[in-house]
């Protein structure tokens, strides 16, 4: 019995353990990364990835998958770099429209019972197309306030860490602790039961997709604030990165099992893994492949722990 409990705990701790496993070698190789400036540089790009991961997590909660989050984040960055600078009102309107579109897609998927993968795969091309229409070649500028916000210097601890922690705690409270969050997760755990007790699955899905859209918009804006210019292909890799981060953080594709804090840790781990490989002087040709290898190792570890749990 006690063994089973330690196994379950170990599984819950796995996101933190994998983060440490990546962090410790980095600190050994480059002790300077522990400093305020070093950590801020290292985790610079973590915030948009964390936000995109939470967008993906919202959708995985209801057993769906969003294959369009990368192009969507790129589109938001393009809107931010063009409309939001030239015609702020129109820009804000466009972003609000994006969030509403996401919510509408969620409702549609539930109403018509279409597989989310099909819908979001199609949407990925729509978002990419719109981004290219807005910004045919890389460029544009970030609104001034956005750059200021992203470069804001927090005291003591580097800003990306503070933001990530804040987002993690807030997300955890909303989705895991409130009764509304619990009901929304219930829609992923046993949709039939939820419908039986009179809850609207359409509303749950629309809410979660809307939340995903909101996090996607925040992700795109924060990315723009960091890069100061946009490109229609800016964040394409976020799609797979966000899925990997959710799974790394203890989420599962089916059954509504997700962990907000785990997913945030997973996103940070993946951000660090790239730097880790750079520190090891691994040529950039091999880095992507190595990142995949790390992912496979961590995920297999999780499966093994789960199997031990069932025995």
């Amino acid at each position: 019995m006690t063994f089973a409990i330690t196994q379950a705990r170990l599984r819950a701790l796995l996101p933190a353990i994998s983060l440490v496993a990546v962090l410790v070698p980095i600190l050994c190789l480059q002790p300077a990364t522990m400093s305020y400036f070093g950590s801020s540089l290292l985790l610079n790009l973590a915030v948009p990835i964390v936000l995109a991961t939470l967008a993906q997590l919202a959708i995985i909660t209801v057993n769906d998958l969003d294959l369009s989050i990368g192009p969507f984040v790129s589109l938001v960055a393009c809107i931010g770099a063009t409309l939001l600078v030239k015609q702020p009102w129109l820009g804000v309107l466009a972003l609000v429209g994006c969030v509403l579109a996401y919510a509408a897609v969620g409702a549609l998927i539930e109403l018509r019972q279409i597989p989310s993968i099909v819908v979001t795969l199609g949407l990925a091309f729509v978002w990419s197309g719109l981004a290219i229409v807005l910004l045919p070649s890389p460029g544009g500028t970030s609104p001034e306030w956005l750059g200021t916000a992203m470069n804001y210097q927090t005291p003591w601890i580097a800003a990306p860490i503070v933001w990530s922690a804040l987002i993690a705690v807030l997300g955890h409270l909303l989705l895991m602790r409130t009764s509304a969050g619990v009901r929304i997760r219930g829609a992923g755990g046993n949709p039939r039961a939820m419908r039986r007790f009179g809850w609207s699955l359409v509303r749950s899905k629309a809410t979660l997709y809307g939340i995903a859209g909101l996090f996607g918009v925040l992700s795109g804006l924060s990315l723009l604030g960091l890069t100061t210019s946009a490109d229609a292909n800016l964040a394409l890799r976020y799609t797979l990165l966000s899925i990997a981060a959710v799974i790394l953080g203890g989420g599962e594709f089916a059954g509504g099992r997700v962990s907000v804090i785990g997913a945030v840790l997973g996103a940070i781990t993946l951000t660090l893994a790239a730097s880790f490989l750079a520190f090891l002087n691994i040529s950039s040709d091999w880095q992507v492949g190595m990142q995949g290898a790390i992912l496979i190792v961590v995920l297999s570890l999780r499966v093994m722990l789960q199997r031990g749990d069932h025995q």
Partner: protein
Amino acid sequence: MGEIKNTPETEETGREALIRFHGIGKTFGRVRALTDINFSFLRGECVGIAGHNGAGKSTLMAVLAGVFEPTQGHIEVDGESLPGYDANAARHAGVRCVFQELSLCANLSIAENMCIVHPQLRGRGWRRRATALMREKLEEIFPGNGLSGNELVSDLTLTQRQMVEIARGFTITDTPVRLVILDEPTSSLDAHTAEQLLAFVRKAAQGGITCLLITHMLGEIQRVADRVMVMRDGSIVSVLARDNLSRKAIILAMGQHLEVDKASADQRARLQRADGPEYQWALGAGRRTKIDASRGEVIGFAGLAGQGQTEALLAIYEAATSRGAGRAKVAFVAGDRGRDGVFPVWSIAQNLDLRWLSGGMAEAGRAGAKRLPIRGLVDFAAARAVVEAWRVKIGIRGASMNAGILSLSGGNQQKVLFARALASDADLILMDDPTRGVDVGTKRDIYQLVRDEAAKGRTFIWYTTENEELTYCDRTYVFRSASVTRLLHADECTEEALLAASFEEHAA
């Protein structure tokens, strides 16, 4: 009296009606699930509901719980007609439902599952309130359960889940609980917890909560019910009062007769033993378990559950499908149909002719078809003929054979699995407790099929946990700790002999 009254009224019992059904009907597409139901659920009574699988019990309860809207008729609550009766209206009326296939969210904790049925649990401290409510009810119904309320449902055993589901049905936030539907509540409970539940149901009924108990365990109904509603083919066929309640009366009303004329033993005796046993196997560790069977024989596997009977069946299957001396044409009927039997997204027809495709199709082609089927391709015309023939034989009505298999009730799904095995060219049919969770009527059909097919020369090996079924077997091997302790012939296969052999420690 003499005649059965379908709607005993207030003055007769001195209780008032809580919910009244007036001419309720429900159709799903072309299938009529309920027809013209008139019934009054009185305050503080316990109504037992009996009927075979597919009789409409679960549908009726789903209408009462507001899950399905009736296509005809109307529902009255406290004497007032409610037109848009849905899940929320049912909740306001104090109706709760404990579903057969549990309605807990496995990804949430026990306490978190509370807020799915109670919209009032919100705001500050909802979690604490939910935990307290749940623990109190669990302790009241199942004293000494040892659950804290913080466990994830996915970490619980099936029994514990059922306990949580039941306790949740009785918890109260703002609307009082006035009627609780218990759909097969004891199916996963052990004897001890089932006892606790039945005692609680009686107590709750005395306390003014109407309890509806749907179960195949007629003994449970007999013990706790004030009235028994018997359903057949989507309507209420009779309502039995407590005074003339007996197992026999309920079964009689269900329109089923337990007496199936046993296969004429001499007819089968002629088939067997003519030229020694057709099949012989040596199984288990050191190949010490010897089992033999002749053509046309029905062999039973008995003993306590999980004493290696299923493993023996699988070993026989392996021997029959591998190359070598013991090779035979074999088919397997799984007991756990959800896990091992049914292809959930396939149609009834596809589920039925699957085994036939890998043996039987070629024969059918040689025997009767005008043109020979091309090797490797499915002969659709012949497949349709096979499906139609077996549909008639196993008596599935109402549903189209192209509908999904899950549109059938559990008992009918099991019949399809039987037809799958029997439609093939197999001479040897292995059955792994195939009547688990199947109603009396379907069982009778299955016994009939086994008997008919055995008479045609097919051999059956039948593992069953119900000792009554062993009377249909010619010989019975009793298992204990993965080996055979006794071989009983049909005439010596009594309840006492079986029990004695089941608990025997050493092989005879």
